[in-house]
């Protein structure tokens, strides 16, 4: 069953159109990958799904209902939670306050203890650092906290915007291990990445976006064998 469907989506900023008729489908339980280079429209797609920008045309359906006109915080309340690009933590709040704030919605508060246990099990370091201010942590720790904060929101679908961006290679591997663990727990993920190798290795299904249009889609093992991927992204 499609948990999330984006249909014929056109949108952009001001007068410049970024997305042109984007169609996307995220099935329950798997990792769906949205792959593309800088400026292709990946983040814009996520922003449209969370409602931070409005669609010009087309619709966004979540659990078979049109949510295109709902404000962002209501979508979060229904379980569409994003790990934003560049982490977007609150530098002056402690780790624990981030986790509390992550569980801001009614739905998430009811599952606070469960999710907290899971988060601490996933990232034991956050338990030790619970009173540290987020702004004083390393980049890798901040990324973990950003993911943890989103999990506290009890996501039905987790949108991850380039979680490997700007991190050391060893931390990148850790982040992708985390994604696999989340997948095992049954959390549906829409992953946006530029890291082709790692992205395709963890995903079940992949979309390639170029200049605001979806140019290719398919199961990730098939996508990784196509000429487009080999030539444009892997340089083989």
């Amino acid at each position, binding site marked *: 069953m499609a948990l999330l469907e984006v249909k014929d989506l056109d949108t952009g900023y001001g007068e410049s159109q970024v997305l042109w008729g984007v169609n996307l489908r995220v099935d329950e339980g798997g990792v769906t990958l949205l792959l593309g280079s800088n400026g292709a429209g990946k983040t814009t797609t996520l922003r449209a799904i*969370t409602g*931070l920008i409005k669609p010009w045309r087309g619709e966004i359906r979540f659990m078979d209902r049109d949510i295109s006109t709902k*404000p*962002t*915080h209501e979508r*979060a*309340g229904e379980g569409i*939670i*994003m790990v*934003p690009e560049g982490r*977007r*933590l*609150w*530098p*002056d*709040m402690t780790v624990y*306050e981030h986790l*509390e*704030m*992550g569980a*801001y*919605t009614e739905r*998430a508060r009811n599952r606070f203890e469960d999710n907290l246990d899971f988060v601490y099990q996933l990232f034991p370091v956050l338990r030790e650092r619970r*009173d540290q201010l987020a702004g004083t942590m390393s980049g890798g720790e901040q990324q973990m906290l950003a993911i943890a*904060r*989103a999990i506290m*929101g009890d996501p039905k679908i987790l949108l991850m915007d380039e979680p490997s961006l700007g991190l050391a290679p060893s931390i990148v591997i850790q982040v992708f291990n985390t994604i696999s663990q989340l997948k095992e727990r049954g959390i549906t993920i829409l992953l946006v990445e530029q890291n082709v190798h790692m992205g395709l290795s963890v995903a079940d299904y992949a979309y390639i976006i170029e200049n605001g249009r979806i140019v290719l889609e398919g199961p990730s093992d098939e996508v990784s064998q196509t000429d487009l991927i080999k030539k444009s992204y892997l340089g083989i």
Partner: protein
Amino acid sequence: MDIDEFFKRPTPLFILILLIVILIAKLLRLETTDYLITIMFFIGIAMALNIIMGFAGYVSFGHTVFLGISGYVFALLVYYNRDFANLMNMYSGIPIFFIALLAGGVSALVAFLVGIPVLKLKGAFFAIATIGLDFAALYIIKAFIPILNPEFFGAQIILPAYALAYKDNVFVAMYITFALIIIANYLIRRSRFGMGLLAISEDEDAAEALGVPTTKYKLISFALSAFFTGMLGAVFGLNSGGVDENLFNLAHTIDMIVMIVIGGIGTVMGPLVGSIIYFILYDTLLVTYPEFNLVILGFIVAVIVLFAPRGVVGILRGKQFMGKKLRDIIE
């Protein structure tokens, strides 16, 4: 909330002590009633602005507009309504508080309506828009008040004898208003609503994406902030025996902002401590160096901001005290 839990943190204790000290100072006549009303006014306006500027991170530079609006509403109410005017000297001045609630409500309504478009702006643009609001309101008042009554020359309303209240009654009204504002500050800071506001001040999009209804929260905090500021303007106007266009003077906003910044933004204790320090400095310097007081005050403020960008309370919050992080205690 558990009572023990409540007093484990010093902020409520500090608030309680402050309220008791003011009351004792009044009862034992340690200071003049005017002095006490003025200090409550100063601390009060800092705490009122704190709700939008300290918690939500929106610097409302034209905030003095709400002193003006409610000041005028209050003055007109008691000028034209003899029942209101007569009530002011009954029941220990508590009716003054209720008329001030009404006047504050007008400011809250204005803030709410103006906030719908203006709170979409961020940073300097929001600050400039609120300055615009201040000037707009000032010119409307200047144009219409003299038309209302030829006695309101130059938009100045001097309250006639029947519309004045005894100092003690004004004190009671100011005291209740003041207590209401600082207690509200503390309760907001500790609530889910307050947590949401702090998240907005640190990163608004991130807050929205996690389910904080940012538009609604910003509007509520702006309206609340305007409401309390307005109540202070109303009681202070009565204390001064009338209102004039000076209430709209942006210098008041600068006072408010400076008090919050030297104390420490984002906390309850910060503006509370900051406004007490500022008021005492201001008052002492005014008496001892009447010619240079603002120069010296400006210098001291500059030094504080330079060496403690997060305010006096800000320096303390990183420090440890008796094995506990001061940050946990202060906030």
